Structure formats: C-alpha cells, structure tokens
C-alpha cells in the first residue's frame, strides 16, 4: 500500500468516497454471501457511501472474501488479487475467512484467505469482520473502518 501514502490527498479522499468492491466466495457455505447482498438492499444501501459491486477485479479497490480457501480456490484467489490495481485492500467476511471456523485442520483447505493472499503479496492489507454470518451492519462497519485506516 505504498501508493496510498504517497498519493495526493485528493486521490485518497476520492478513494474513501468511492470504494468499489469485488466479491469472491472461496468455497464457504454461501451464508456470508447472502449477508453481503443484504448490504445493497434498501435497508442498508451502501451506495450512499459510494460502495459499488463491480464484475471484474480490475475495476475493484476492495476485495470481499468469504469462506475458507479450499485447495482448488487457492490459485484463482491469488490470481484475482494480483489482477487488482493498487492501492487495494481485502475484507475477510465471516468466521471462516477470519480464522477458518469449522474448517480448521480440514484436509481440503489451503488456509485462511489472508494467509493465502500474503503468499503472493506480503503487504496485503486485510480487515477482519467476524460473525457466522456477520450482520450487514457489521460488514458496513468493517468497510468504514478500513477506509478510515487508509
């Protein structure tokens, strides 16, 4: 995240005002994904803060990751992360993405997403949103905290 500190303050302000998120499910149980979809509904409406769900990692600033990383998902997750333009950050949504949850020590998983990301990018900035699943309010708060830390 060296770019974020050296960029002019206008860009940093713009980045905080329009974080576009790309959502990656790394073989979780789909419950956190449903809660992420809830954030876009009228009750929470994250578009108020400029958050937009985009279809390509190339357009994204923030990656939302749900679930433990299975062996099969490891390489695609790393590739999607490297495809994101800097400055970039990741939000681990849910207990499994934070600390493996029920999948700890399972034979089919490659590790928690933050560890998998740091294999290819040691400087990856991660924010953790625990819960099984976390409430939409919690996810929104996680993103707000991330933007405050930029």
């Amino acid at each position, binding site marked *: 995240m060296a770019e974020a500190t050296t960029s002019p303050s206008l860009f940093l302000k713009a980045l905080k005002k329009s974080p576009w998120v790309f959502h990656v499910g790394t073989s979780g149980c789909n419950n956190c994904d449903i809660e992420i979809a809830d954030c876009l509904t009228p009750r929470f409406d994250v578009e108020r803060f400029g958050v937009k769900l*985009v279809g390509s990692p*190339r*357009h994204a600033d923030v990656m939302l990751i749900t679930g433990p990383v299975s062996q099969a998902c490891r390489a695609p997750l790393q590739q999607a992360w490297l495809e994101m333009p800097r400055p970039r950050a990741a939000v681990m949504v849910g207990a499994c993405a934070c600390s493996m949850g029920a999948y700890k020590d399972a034979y089919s998983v490659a590790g928690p997403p933050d560890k998998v990301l740091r294999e290819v990018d040691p400087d990856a900035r991660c924010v953790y949103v625990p819960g099984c699943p976390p409430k939409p309010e919690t996810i929104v708060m996680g993103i707000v905290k991330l933007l405050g830390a930029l």
Partner: protein
Amino acid sequence: MGEITEWVFFFLIFPGMLFAVFVGLAMSWVDRKVTALVQWRKGPPVSQPLWDVIKLLGKEVIVPAQSWAAGFLALPFVAFSAVAVAGTFVWMAATGFGAPPLGDLIVVLYLLTVPTLAVILGGAASGNPLGAVGASRDMKLLLAYELPFVIALLVAVFQERVVDEATIHAGTLSLSGIVEFQQTAGSIIARPSGFLAFLVAIFCAHAKLGFVPFDLAEAECEIGEGALLEYSGAALGLFKLTQTVLLATMPVLLVTVFWGGMGPGFWGVLAFVGKIVLILVLFVLIKNTNPRVRIDQAMRFFWGPMTIVALLALLLAQLGL
C-alpha cells in the same frame, strides 16, 4: 488565429469537453439517484460520479501481458475525444452558441459510432475471451440500432410544412438548420411522423448508451463488463468519462432534432433543461423496469419493429404529415 482559438475554446471548454463532462456527471448522478428511488433506496450523494472518476484517474493502470499494449492504451483516448467533439457539435446547435459546420448531422452520426468501435477494438486488444464476447455483442448491437437510428433522424431532415400558405422544407443535414426549421414551423415531435421517429430514436439512443435492457455488451453479472473487463485505473476512467459525455449528448441530440432545441430567454433555457431531464428520466425508468435481452432478441427488435416504424415515419414525412 482568432478562429482557431475560438474552436479550441469550443472543443475544450464550452460547450465541449469540460462543460459536457460536468453536465454528464450531473446527469449520471440523476440516473443513479432515480434508480435508487425506484428501488426504494436513498442513493449516492451528488458528488459521487465525480469522486468515482477522480479515483479511477489516480489508480494503477495494468496492461495485461497478452494484450496489444499500444492499442489497449490509445483506444480510451480515441473514444473520449470522438465523443467530446460530437458533444460539442450537438450542444452548439442546441444552444445556438457559435456556428457548427454544415452537414454536422452526418459528422455527429459518424463520431457517435467511434466510442463503440473503440470499445470493440479495446475489448479485442485486451486478449481476454470475455472481452472478445463483449466486443462481438457490441458490434452486433451497433449494426442493429444504427439502421433505424439513421432512418429516424432522416425523418427530421425530410420534414416539410405549410406556414402562411408557403411550404417550408427542413431539407438540411445541419443540426442548426433543423432547429431553425422548428422555430418557424413548430416542433417535429408534434407531428405523427416526428412522434414515431422520436419513439424509435429513444430506443436507439438507449441502446447506444448501453443501458439495460440493451446492456448485453457489458452485462457485468454475465461476462463481467465485457470489453471493459481488463481495463483498470485511468484507462477505465476515460471510458467511464466517454459514457458520461455520451449521456450528456444523446438526450440533447434528441431534443435538438425532434423537440426544437433551446428557445430564447430564461424560459427557453428552463424548458430546454426540462426536456433533457424528462428524456433522461424516461431512459432511467425504461432501464429499471426491463430485464436484459439476448443479442438475437435485440437484433430482431431493431431490424424488425423499429426499422418498420422508422420507415413508416419516413413515408408519413414524405406525405407531409
């Protein structure tokens, strides 16, 4: 020298690039806000589109390893400059500010296809298979809507009308000529032929803007934004600005050709802005109440009913209706 600086001012500041960008950003805010209201949400603040663009211009630009790098990076500039020039001509004719060259309707029609061609080439240059799918869909969509769009605009060219027992012909390929004709003979939209042509032009402009139900070239949940998939940072920002300026141009083109352009005085300007916002909100409502169509459905729609209605309007215009 004076003429050159004048044209530079027209193209770069008013009513060209700078003005069109800010109008377009305001209009894309209206788009997002009305969309949010339709979905019972609160929606983004007014400054949101501007922040998005500033952010994109400041981000890293990644050139994919398998792409044609020179073309990949040059095409956003081609798209943006073409649409900025088209926007300049349309706004000049609409507001009567400066004198656009003769036959500018043809120039505008050509320039408005350039952004689509740039997106097609950019998608192909990115080397991404989904980009290629998006490019091929964009190409088919361009072929589909261009035909009825041109016929619908020709309806305005072929208008004639009896005023004080003298027949007045529009008979001009100049946008300001069409505006002048409407000042003496009334809006083209008020006639049966003009109204039909306006309806066709609305749908064609909708497809040109790439809005749902004709957003199949982008289709972010299906082929991940299609041709723009591999673009990031400033290059993507320029394509977004291109769409923004296009959004500031298409409703104004429709108002200019069919609805009399801008009238004189304060009320004229207010009515002009009102017409533009009305067309924009119509676009947004069509966008929010229709699901995406398949490419074959889109082509059948434009080459079937739309072309037939446009030809009918042309026939009516020849009969003087």
